[in-house]
Each structure stands twice: as C-alpha cells, then as structure tokens.
C-alpha cells in the first residue's frame, strides 16, 4: 500500500510541476496576476508531494518491504537501520528521487525566502525550476520507477553494495545533490532575467546568496566524496580524476567562477552577460554530471545502472535545457548589456583572469572526460585519459589563479596602479618566496614543486594579512584595532576565510604529493616495516563476525622510537549476501600526518600483503575544503542582504500609486 501511495504522490507532484512550469511563466509575460500567484503554492505543494513519495520509499526500506524491486535489490534484512535509510538513495531510482526532492526543497526555499522580490520575477524563477522538475519526475515515472513491485516476493534482499555501507555514503550524496541541484536556482534566476530583460546589481544581489549556498554544499559534497574514496577504496588516494569525480568538479569550477563574477555584477554592474553564461554553464554541467553518472556510459564506481534507454532520455532533456537556454541567451544577451568599463589593471580584470582560468580548467576537465566517450561513440576505438593529463594541465592553470588571489582583493575597482600594488605587496611576496624556499628542507628533500605549492599557500596568507592591516588603517574613528576589525563586513571575512581554505588545501596537496611514502609489502606475523619514521609491526589476523559480514581482522602495532603509539585494526570483509570482498582501512589521523594501513590478500601461512602508507598533511586537503565552505557561510550572514531585503519589502509596501506597472501593483495587492 505504502509504495502505491508513493507512486501516486509522484504523479500528483508531476501534475503540480507542470502547472508550476507553465502558468506563472505565461502569467508573468501577460500580466495575469492570478496565474503569477500560482507559482508559490504549486511549488510548495510539489515539495510536499515529492517529500511524501520519498518518505514512502524510505519507509519501504526501513520496514524491509522486499516486494519493492528497489528494496529487494539494494537492501537486506541484516543491514543496519542507518544503512537501510541510506540505501534509499543508494540505487539509481532512489538517487533520482533524492535529486527531485532536493529540487523541490530548493523550490520551496526560493518561494519562502523571496517574498521581498517582485512577484513576476519569483514566478519566472519558480517556473523555470518547475520545468526542470517536470523533466526529472517524468524521467522517474517513465524509465526508473522506484516503487516497481516484484513478484514473487523474495525472502530477503540482495543487500546494498558494501562500498556504500559507510557513514560517508549516508551524507555524501545528499550534500553533493544539494550542490548540483542548488545551481538550478542561479540558473533559474539567470533565465528569468533573460526573459524579463531585467539584469542589474539588484538581480546579482538576489541570486548571489543562493549561488553561495549551492556552492557550499557542492564543496562539502566533493570533499566528503574524496574523503570517502580515501578511506573506503583502500588505495590511499584522495582524487583519481575519475569521470564521476570530474562530473562534480566541473560545476564546482564554474560555480566558483560564478561566485566571483556575481560579485562584480553586484558591486560594479559589470560582467553581466558573462555572469548569465556562467550561471547557465554551472547548471548545465550539473545536469551533464547527472547524465554521465546515471546513464551508465562510464566505467566507474558510481555507475550502478546500465540502461541506455535512460541515457537517451537524459540526453534529450539535456539538449533541451542547455540548448534552449543557450538559444535564449543568444537572443536576449544583447539586451542585458555588458556592464561598466574598467582598466587593464583593476580588480575587475583580476577577477576576469580568475574567471578565464577557472573556465579553461573546467574546459580541460570536460575535454578529458568526454573525449573517450565521443571516440567510443564514433566507433574509433576505446581509450582513456590518464590522471597525468589532468595534473599537467591543472598546475600551470591554477598556479597563476592562486597567485592572483593574493592581488585581487587589494586592487581597486575600475582602475588600479601596478607600481602601487607592487609596493604594497612586496614584503608579503618576499616573505612567501623565502619561506617557501627554506621550508622543504625541514620536511626532507627540496623539490621545486613543493616550494611552488608552499609559496602560493604562504602568499595567500601574507597578502591577506597585508589586506587586513590596510583595511584597519583606513577605517576612521577613535576605535581600538579590535573594534575596527569588528567593523569589517561579514562578506569580507567570508572571502578571506575561503581564500585561507585554498591555502590550507594547497599545503595539503603539496605535502602529500611531495612527501608521502607508500609501501606494499608481504608481512608474516611478527614482521615489521618502517615508513616516515614509524615502525609497523604485524601481529597476524583473527576472524570476526559482523552483522552482515565475516572478516579477517589484523592487528598492527605502530611505534615511534621504540614507544608504542597506536594499535591499528584493518579488516578484510566478506559480505555474505552478495559474496563481495571489501577492504576496511585503518587510519590513524593526525594534524600533520595520517598513518594508513590496509590489508591486501592472504598470501600463505598467515602472511598477508599489506599496504603501509605515510601521508603527511593529507587532512589539510579536506580541512581546506571545509574552510572554503565555511567562508561561504560567513559571507551569507552579511548584513547587507538582510538590510536590502527589508528595504525592498518597505519600498513595495509604500508603492501603491496606480502609475506602477500592473504586475507590480498586483503583487503588492497580493501581499497579505
């Protein structure tokens, strides 16, 4: 019964989305105020029904209803409760439902938090989101119904892929999807602006917080995914340039560019067309990511489904959405205009360079990800693009981008002076170069790339300090330094925090790439091996039994200079329902290093092949990402958003004269 309710709720949600996608949009262009007014209630009702559908699926998983195909293939009565819940989005169908739920959630959020915006703007935004929702709900109902029944009913389920039985899997997909789908708001705002012909600083201020929130989620989602790969796959890597990782990284790169470009549009009214193009691209790449991961075109960890029919549907939808929005862009971008003029040396041009570098980086990832697929589709053979390609491209592209990060915030808008910038930043530069040249000797051998990485990281910090000092100095009034520091805006601190996150991230990547030690060894019980000044002693394995698996559990005693510091217990698990073998890594995390041990295979007579890794500063990679996201969060709390929202509300309450356009007047009357 419950699955049928879920399916019924999905159908109603589709009908609501159809209404939401069409009537308010038409209403906004024709000035039908009743049609415009439909946007908010249909959007919110759609959320309620998608949530009911999701709840029904989750209920089926929690109560082990194996008459539902999806539950039978992805769950098992032995599976612990939290993984049964996570299994709701572990499958292709379930993850699509999660996608739709996220989209509905964003829709509801826009309808709730945009009361101060002109009503026809909100109507258009919600309509565009409705169109996307129609696509996904239709896709689900036509090709990937999560509620399909199974007969005869099996006694037990096939279990969830053991790789996904992990706390990271409970959080990673929702985070990532919140990010992916969140760019739909920036996209919808851009499309609404193109249709309505209104694109100015106010528009940028409206869409900026939404973009930042989406970007924060995406940042956290990618970092979680990377962390999950690090400890779950058992190879000790944190990024593999796997197509699925690339699929989430491309929208992130473009989203980062978009955040910066929106800043210019808000502060200077510049980069208008470019901002719109980025908003369209960011969401298009999110859709492309969904297509790549969900259509089964990739050879990858994440491809649980391999059904070409679904691929064709998503591809058609992709062409429709991306093609349609680009056509609209080509047609309307001229009306949007380019925005304010600026000199070659100015904050605008620094931000533009950052944007170009990020876009080129995203383009090169796109090339490396799609080329093998295109070649394969054309029947020209099978090939893959190796990680060295991405590494080779990324270092020269990101190094100047990160260097500019130090200068940009200090440059004036419109026109800056290069000699002036040099004078202000020379000490920051000297300090970063000198310390970067010296520091590698502390850690071991001197390497050019390590020095470069450290220089960039220190440069971000020193130039930020210079910036902060100047800011305090120009703040007038009889105040203490602390009070002056408190007077700086939240969005300023948010930016600095996010940039600091980049510095921390760069340190992590640089150190782990330069100084990690990886040893694959054969170990008899009693054998020891050394890595990074630590001694690892293998004490053999014992058999343990888990809720839905059996495992060989090793004990490895780690000591340094003869004193024991840690006992590590990596496992090799055999999941009984599927017969899958899984490696459970043991990691001893520290601020400056991780010790990483995982079991390979039993060799002979109690001996095992073992991976023993020493990873300096690896935690900084995810810590940096977290700081970036946190920076976004701080910027969101900036007072100007709340102030502007209040002003706009007040302005609309005052405007009651009959001269205002019909739609605006109508929206005022609609106000409760």
């Amino acid at each position: 019964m419950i699955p049928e309710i879920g399916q019924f709720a999905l159908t109603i949600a589709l009908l609501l989305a159809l209404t939401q996608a069409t009537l308010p949009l038409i209403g906004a262009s024709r000035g039908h105020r009743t049609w415009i007014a439909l946007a908010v209630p249909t959007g919110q009702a759609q959320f309620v029904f998608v949530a009911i559908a999701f709840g029904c699926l989750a209920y089926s998983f929690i109560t082990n209803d194996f008459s539902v195909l999806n539950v039978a293939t992805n769950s098992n009565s032995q599976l612990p409760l939290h993984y049964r819940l996570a299994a709701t989005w572990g499958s292709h169908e379930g993850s699509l439902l999660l996608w739709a739920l996220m989209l509905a959630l964003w829709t509801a959020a826009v309808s709730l938090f945009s009361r101060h915006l002109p009503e026809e703007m909100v109507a258009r935004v919600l309509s565009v989101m409705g169109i996307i929702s129609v696509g996904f709900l239709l896709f689900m109902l036509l090709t990937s119904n999560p509620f399909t029944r199974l007969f005869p009913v099996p006694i037990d389920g096939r279990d969830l892929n053991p790789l996904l039985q992990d706390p990271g899997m409970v959080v990673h997909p929702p985070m990532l999807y919140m990010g992916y789908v969140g760019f739909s708001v920036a996209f919808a705002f851009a499309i609404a602006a193109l249709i309505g012909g209104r694109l100015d600083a106010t528009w940028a201020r409206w869409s900026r917080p939404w973009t930042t929130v989406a970007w924060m989620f995406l940042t956290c989602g990618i970092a979680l995914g990377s962390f999950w790969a690090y400890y779950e796959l058992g190879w000790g890597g944190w990024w593999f340039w796997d197509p699925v990782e690339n699929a989430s990284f491309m929208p992130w790169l473009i989203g980062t560019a978009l955040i910066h470009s929106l800043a210019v549009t808000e502060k200077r009214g510049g980069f208008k067309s470019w901002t719109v193009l980025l908003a369209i691209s960011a969401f298009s790449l999110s859709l492309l990511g969904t297509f790549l991961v969900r259509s089964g075109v990739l050879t990858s960890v994440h491809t649980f489904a391999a059904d070409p029919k679904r691929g064709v549907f998503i591809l058609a939808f992709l062409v429709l959405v991306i093609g349609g929005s680009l056509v609209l862009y080509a047609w309307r971008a001229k009306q949007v205009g380019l925005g304010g003029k600026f000199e070659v040396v100015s904050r605008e041009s620094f931000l533009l360079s950052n944007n170009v570098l990020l876009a080129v980086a995203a383009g090169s990832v796109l090339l490396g990800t799609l080329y093998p697929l295109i070649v394969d589709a054309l029947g020209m053979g099978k090939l893959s693009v190796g990680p060295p390609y991405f590494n080779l491209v990324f270092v020269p592209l990101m190094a100047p981008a990160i260097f500019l990060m130090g200068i940009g915030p200090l440059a004036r808008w419109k026109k800056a002076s290069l000699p002036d910038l040099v004078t202000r930043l020379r000490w920051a530069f000297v300090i970063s170069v000198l310390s970067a040249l010296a520091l590698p000797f502390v850690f071991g051998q001197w390497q050019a790339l390590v020095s470069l990485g450290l220089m960039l990281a220190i440069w971000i910090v020193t130039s930020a300090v210079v910036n902060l000092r100047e800011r305090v100095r120009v703040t007038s009034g009889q105040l203490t330094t602390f009070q002056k520091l408190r007077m700086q805006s939240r969005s300023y601190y948010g930016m600095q925090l996010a940039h600091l996150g980049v510095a921390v991230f760069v340190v992590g990547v640089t150190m782990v790439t330069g100084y990690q030690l990886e040893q694959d060894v054969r170990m008899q019980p009693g054998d020891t091996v050394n890595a990074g000044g630590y001694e690892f002693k293998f004490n053999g394995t014992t058999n343990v039994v888990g809720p839905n698996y059996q495992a060989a559990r090793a004990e490895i005693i780690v000591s340094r200079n003869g004193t024991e510091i840690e006992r590590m217990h990596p496992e090799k698990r055999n999941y009984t329902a599927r017969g899958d073998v899984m490696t459970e890594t043991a990691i001893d995390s520290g601020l400056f290093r991780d010790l990483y041990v995982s079991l390979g295979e039993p060799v002979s007579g109690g001996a095992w092949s073992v991976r023993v890794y020493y990873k300096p500063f690896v935690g900084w990679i995810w810590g940096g990402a977290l700081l970036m996201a946190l920076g976004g969060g701080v910027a969101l709390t900036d007072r100007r958003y709340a102030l502007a929202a209040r002003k706009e509300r007040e302005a609309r309450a005052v405007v009651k004269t009959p001269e205002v356009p019909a739609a605006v007047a109508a929206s005022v009357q609609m106000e409760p």
Partner: protein
Amino acid sequence: MKRRHKRIAFILVGLAGLAVAAYLVASAFRNNLVFFFSPTQVAAREAPVNQTFRIGGLVQEGTLKRENDGLTVRFTVTDTAASIPVVYKGILPDLFKEGKGCVAQGKIGADGVFEADQVLAKHDENYMPPEAGDAIDKAKHAKEASKTVVAN
C-alpha cells in the same frame, strides 16, 4: 585612441593567454591518451611497443599464480580467442577473481608478457568492464563469422 589601444592590448593579452593554455592542454592531452587493445589485437601485434596501453578480458581460470615474494602475481587475460600473459607487482583489487572481467594498464615486454602497473578495480561481482566485455563480444563474433565461412 588611447582607450582603443588599451582595449586591443587587453584582448591580445587575453588571446595570448588562451593560446598558451590551449597549447598546454593539447600537448598534455596527446601524451596521456591510453588506448585499449583486446588480447586478439595484442596477439596480432597491433598494440604499440614501449607505450602504455590497456588490455582487458577475462582472467583465465587456473592461471593466477603468486611468486615467492608474495606480491608479484601472474595471470592470463583472455577474450576467449587469444590469451595474453600478464605480470603485476602489487596488491590486486578486492574483486579480482579468476573467471571474472578485468582491465590492466601497462606495457608489453619483449617476451610478449604484459607488464601491468595498474589493475583496475571493479566493484560489483557481476559487473563486466565495458572494454573487457567489448573485447569478448568481438572475439565471439569473429569466431562465429569464421564458423560460417567453414560451413559454407
């Protein structure tokens, strides 16, 4: 005039930057393409010597052997038509099994043994890597085609 000069300079710098980026990307790209060859193709010496490529197919039953160091393994990859011996030093992925699909990356040695530096992990016991599946399908078609020729 001055304004125009500036704009031209701006555009030129931008174009130069893009050209450098495009060059970087293109050259890195060319040097890092890894092609895939089936055991049949490798046996027919179609695969490049001294260049990294991928090979895929089934791990032939009964061929997986471990050397005394405990880390070096030898096995044979087959597409049912041809078989290529592979040697790999390292830890095999969890789902590497005899009779299942696998993809290995490395170079072919002078002795005809494929020296893998990477054996790719697959995460579902019923999942066939597309490359491996493709190689096996092709070999099957080739066999059937030759059978029909004989029958005629």
